[in-house]
């Protein structure tokens, strides 16, 4: 019954994935929340929402990292989110 190892990543990849899932997940969560927060008129609503949405977004990203076939895909996704949100955050600040 245990998982079939042929589908699992090797140990080097595994550590990279764990780091990306936890740290990257937090970065992504913060980026998305700050990004949306700077766009909406009343920022305090975001604080109220982030209380429950943060951990869900974070979990979602962790799933994405563990499920993606390669680390490169995850890095591209991270880069994409950075390119999308950082200008918004800087411009609307």
């Amino acid at each position: 019954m245990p998982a079939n190892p042929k589908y699992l990543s090797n140990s080097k990849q595994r550590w990279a994935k764990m780091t990306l899932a936890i740290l990257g997940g937090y970065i992504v969560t913060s980026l998305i929340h700050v990004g949306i927060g700077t766009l909406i008129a009343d920022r305090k609503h975001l604080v109220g929402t982030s209380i429950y949405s943060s951990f869900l977004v974070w979990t979602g990203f962790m799933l994405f990292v563990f499920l993606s076939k390669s680390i490169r895909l995850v890095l591209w996704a991270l880069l994409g989110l950075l390119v999308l949100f950082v200008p918004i955050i800087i411009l609307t600040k």
Partner: protein
Amino acid sequence: MSKLKPLPKRLHNVLFHTHTVSGIVLSFVLFVIFFCGAVSFFKEEVYRWENPMARFKGPDEVDYDKVIAVLKSNNHCLLLDEGTTIIPPEKTNPFIELFYAVEGANGKVKRKNASIDPRSYMYYEGLPKHTTLINTIYRLHYLRQIPVIGIYISGFAGFFLIFAMVTGLLIHWKNIIEKFHAFQWKGKWKRIWTESHISLGFLTLPIQLIYGMSGALLGLSILLLLPSLYLFDGDREKIAEIIRPEFAIQYDKNASEQTNAISLNSLYKNITEEYSNFHIHKIFLKNFKKQDGTATVYYTDHKGIMGDGTTVFNLKDGAIAYRSIPYKKSYVSSTYALLIKLHYVTFGGLGLKVIYFILALITCYVITSGNMLWYSARDNKKYSDKQRQFHFKTTRIYLSLTLGLVSAVALMFWGNKLIPLHVENRVFYVNAIFFSGWLLFFSSGLLMKSFRTITNLNLILFSILSFGTPIFNGIITRDWVWDVFNSYNRSVAHVDITWFLLGIISMIILFKNQKREKTNEELA
């Protein structure tokens, strides 16, 4: 029964592996957190049991102005400006509890707590700490005993619980309906562990989500604060105001002295008249002696999940500075309050607490069955002897630790009665009994050769300790179950009866287990 659509093979295997690994690592700490948390639901209800001094019936009305006068006369360096909290008498605790600040050596602010007997206005310093019992278990619940990082470990445990829950739901998805209907306590252990893990895990999904999210929020609020801080240019107070608007009021440290402040009793009456079905559970005073001083009154109906309100009065003239009306909260200030209420179950009454308690215990079972499932799926010839030894040892540590904790909690109730109330450093001795008991049960579990002996050992220990608890309480405090059952001390009887029932349940499991063992031997 039709099967649900399974996940694609690769996804299933990857998720299965993350679920297994995160689950095994988490299981140790999660069991401790869930079990101690489940016991802590009844922190208030057990108070009369743990402190025989609290077994009296207080008067219906309390003179809060006198409470302040008593507090003042007992503390020379009292700092009323710093914030003083008054907890009015409750059904579960007839004392008035006070949390206040005094000026300690070299001008530092020192926080203290005291209790006042509402019959005689006798003043006791440090009483709640002195009778600690559930408090230690409650602190263990968020790993407070581990310095500095304990709270973050518990917060991350909550967060990874969400992850384990989602991956568990996804990998067991195809079996949920089928196993749910097929589930029975017969056959091979491996099958029982699998089916009960899936069906009971499915039933406890809501409570796991609630505790995953609120637990992570309580432990890791600092991580949530950082993005919000950026939005408000690093203004921490601004965020506190958004979540709890009653904190938005500004105080002047140098405001002039207040001479004729309004009576606290009249404010109390004001609220009880306006909200007759509500119960005032906290009064908070700030800048009490100053012109801009306020009294914040917190009240709840103990029923609805939004059924609590806050009113801030100016002490100068009794005008309302801020109020949050029950059932009419704004979105922003209610999300945090909602998760906290869901976590502490301060709504719905005792019945709901019992339901929560049972669901939390089932979650403990789900965690244990996950661990057993992991072991029994690997207990075959496909694995080398070394690997199998590792699987066995890990599960043995897990079982000794968790079952030992259950017995140790029962032992602590003995400890609470065995160490008399007036003993100096009492808290230390009671805690020593609990932790050394846990260590002893844990290490004796490690010496056992099979899981069955660990379970049986702890079932016997637990039964003896459970049956002994009401007897000890009767002998030492003279409040036998039948004496207190029909009085205001009913909660004492409830605790005793609960322990007696737990003892019986533990005996039943023990005998069933033995019977099963016998029939299995006959079959083999």
